């Protein structure tokens, strides 16, 4: 993806096949963009997915962009990836603000599009014809201030704060908690075949009658509805699940998200690039350094900045450190959900040790704001690498202890094996990502397949599961931590001396000492802080392999110091969207285990 200037050959074949329906195309920062006519978009996308030479089997993202001043200001953007061919293509549909804001839904092609399209509707007011369930997803359904990411929507909303509070408090908490919404009869036919079997087996529980003869009674259709969340210890944040039960069997589960919607992407349009970095801390707050790095890499590609070798290696260390601390919390909280408390304490002890390292480097335990565009906020202190090495050598012993405790435990095995299975093909179709995708047997890891930083020069393995159940997800994440330790130890060995910031006065502030004594530097410092650093017009989608999966940063610039669009492609949003597919037909207690295995973090899902 990086550096390529020749257009993706798919464009030429598309033109041949669809003629005038294919608009302009371009190669921007190594990615081919092709504009497709609104009327034919579904045909084009279906062909791209199915044609034997194309095979774009993975929908990385669906989003929209509104430009500040353009004749056709709205664009719907599809980021397509072919995992077998390792190819990437961005397909766009341009829309008139005055014309119908409607495009054809692609949920029938990629299940992963379901929530993504709902989000575009919610945030931009673009309808998707043929979408099975086009409701608001992040804002509540009676929200009537408009569509927040449109440019004519004021940052603070249309109403006064008192009015906003009044309307919010007036919301009906029991809304969408009724049999009507959950009617399983409508949905049954649409369920996959294996789920039919699972539901049938689960419901047909032999009971013993009064005369002690086993029989299968006619089970009534009285289903029970329960509401889990948004404030519940097993939902890992403010997730709400409305579950329809037949006895203990989950017939349907409908996740409601958006309870932590904080308007990150809107806020980003009002911030300079460096001012966005503190925002990225708070999206996936379990692995803040990795988010900082993902954003900085995207901004640097947009501005054409090369980072120094020392900065590159330090960023690799920070990425792997955040992978470990995120997986530590995952293992601890998942174990609590399945009934093992000790793991939580052991994992948090290790996490506290990692916090000490991060604190020594950045001054913060969690919200590190580690990077700056073009470099880092600080170099590591003296003796830090030694402490890191010591910690990295010690960590696998804790992991082995946890493995010994869980993997020989009948309860753990029974609760995790063959629970929440996703096949490889389905996992890709649902746009699962990260450990969830790999546990299902798809060996896709951005660090290997589209290497960034200097990942291509490290010796590490990508663990892949066989069955795609909760158990495999546990094994994959535990092994990922061990591989991260390997990478960290290699990185410490090779850490070169030198500056941490790029030698580029456009983006790097002059040293504070000069800014206080030298007029030129002071003006330079002042202008950079007050006016920000303009990025040349263009757009970039930069994927990085975060602990939760592929974090994509999609930045669109129109040449000013603030982005037109800052889109986060949230990995656990897509992983959570498949929860109904994984959990329906299992027991209620398995739903908790499956939900835990997804490794959600609501700050990133709701943004």
């Amino acid at each position, binding site marked *: 993806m990086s550096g390529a200037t020749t257009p993706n050959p798919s464009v030429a074949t598309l033109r041949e096949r669809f003629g005038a329906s294919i608009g302009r195309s371009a190669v921007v920062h190594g990615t081919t963009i092709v504009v497709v006519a609104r009327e034919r978009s579904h045909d084009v996308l279906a062909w791209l997915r199915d044609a034997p030479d194309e095979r774009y089997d993975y929908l990385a993202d669906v989003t929209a962009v509104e430009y500040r001043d353009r004749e056709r200001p709205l664009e719907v953007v599809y980021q397509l990836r072919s995992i077998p061919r390792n190819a990437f293509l961005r397909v766009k549909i341009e829309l008139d603000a005055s014309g119908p804001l409607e495009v054809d839904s692609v949920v029938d092609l990629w299940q992963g599009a379901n929530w993504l399209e709902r989000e575009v509707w919610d945030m931009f007011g673009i309808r998707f014809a043929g979408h099975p369930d086009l409701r608001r997803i992040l804002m509540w359904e009676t929200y009537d201030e408009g569509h927040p990411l449109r440019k004519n929507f004021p940052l603070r909303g249309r109403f006064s704060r*008192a009015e906003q509070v009044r309307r919010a408090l007036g919301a009906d908490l029991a809304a969408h908690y009724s049999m009507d919404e959950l009617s399983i009869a409508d949905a049954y036919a649409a369920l996959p075949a294996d789920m039919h079997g699972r539901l049938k087996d689960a419901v047909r529980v032999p009971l013993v009658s009064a005369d002690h003869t086993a029989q299968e009674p006619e089970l009534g259709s009285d289903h029970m509805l329960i509401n889990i969340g948004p404030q519940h210890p097993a939902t890992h944040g403010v997730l709400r699940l409305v579950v329809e039960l037949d006895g203990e069997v989950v017939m349907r589960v409908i996740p409601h998200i958006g309870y932590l*919607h904080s308007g990150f992407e809107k806020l980003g349009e009002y911030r300079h690039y460096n*001012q966005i970095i503190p925002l990225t801390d708070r999206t996936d707050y379990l692995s803040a350094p990795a988010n900082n790095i993902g954003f900085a890499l995207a901004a640097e590609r947009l501005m054409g900045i090369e980072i120094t070798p020392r900065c590159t290696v330090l960023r690799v260390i920070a990425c792997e450190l955040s992978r470990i601390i995120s997986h530590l*919390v995952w293992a601890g909280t998942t174990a609590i959900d399945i009934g093992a408390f000790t793991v939580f304490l052991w994992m*948090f002890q290790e996490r506290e040790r990692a916090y000490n390292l991060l604190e020594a480097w950045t001054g913060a335990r969690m919200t590190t704001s580690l990077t700056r565009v073009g470099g880092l906020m600080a170099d590591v202190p003296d003796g830090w690498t030694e402490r890191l090495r010591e910690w990295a050598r010690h960590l696998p012993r804790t992991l082995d202890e946890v493995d010994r405790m869980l993997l020989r435990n009948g309860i753990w095995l029974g609760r995790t094996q063959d629970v929440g299975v996703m096949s490889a093909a389905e996992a890709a179709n649902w746009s699962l990502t990260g450990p969830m995708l790999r546990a299902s047997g798809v060996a896709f890891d951005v660090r290997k397949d589209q290497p960034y930083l200097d990942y291509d020069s490290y010796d590490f393995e990508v663990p892949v599961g066989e069955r795609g159940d909760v158990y495999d997800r546990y094994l994959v994440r535990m092994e990922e931590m061990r591989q991260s330790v390997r990478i960290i130890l290699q990185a410490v060995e090779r850490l070169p001396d030198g500056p941490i910031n790029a030698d580029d006065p456009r983006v790097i502030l002059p040293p504070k000492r000069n800014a206080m004594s030298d007029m030129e530097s002071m003006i330079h410092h002042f202008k950079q802080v007050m006016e920000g650093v303009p990025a040349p017009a263009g757009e970039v989608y930069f994927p990085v392999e975060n602990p939760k999966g592929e974090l994509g940063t999609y930045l669109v610039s129109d040449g000013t110091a603030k982005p037109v669009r800052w889109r986060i492609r949230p990995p656990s949003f897509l992983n959570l969207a498949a929860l109904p597919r994984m959990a329906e037909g299992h027991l209620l207690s398995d739903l908790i285990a499956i939900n835990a295995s997804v490794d959600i973090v609501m700050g990133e899902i709701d943004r």
Partner: protein
Amino acid sequence: MELTAAGDRSGFVSPNWVTTRLDDLVNWSRANSLWPMAFGTACCAIEFMATAASRFDLARFGMERVAYSPRQADVLICAGRLPFKLAPVIRRIWDQMPQPKWCISMGACASTGGIFDNYAMVQGIDTIVPVDVYVPGCPPRPEGLLYGIMLLQKKIKGESVFDPTLRVEQLVDQNGLFLEPAAVDELSEPFGNSVHQTRSA
């Protein structure tokens, strides 16, 4: 005390008796067995977890029983940002908690909206529930939260069981709010850097 001679019990005080003010006794027991209702929403919840885990050990303050049901809780700890979509939820949880109850607002977002001065975020939970202690930080360190808890304990020790005004439930008014609309607007005013950082390009 010590016994001066066998049979002389003039200086003896029975170990079965303590004289104290009722307020002191009640407050002492309330302050040292606060059961927190952890309303964890975002980053602060992770620091709350760290506070509850082994290194900082919340149990030292009589808080080892984290209540996940509001009906068995004394102190609501709002750990993290509170979007408008969540506003009716925290209010219902607060209403479900029995008296006596207190509230700690953990972190910048819960206290003021923090860096999220936008359409989605409640600008301080004090527009919705009454707050006893505000803990600053983004997120606060566990020591910060512990200090906030100790401040709350101090506050509780100054209360009186005979003051009925302390336990009055604040109910929704005719505007559908808990404060005057003007007061909500004033509390939600941007301040500091927030005033300047929200200009569009």
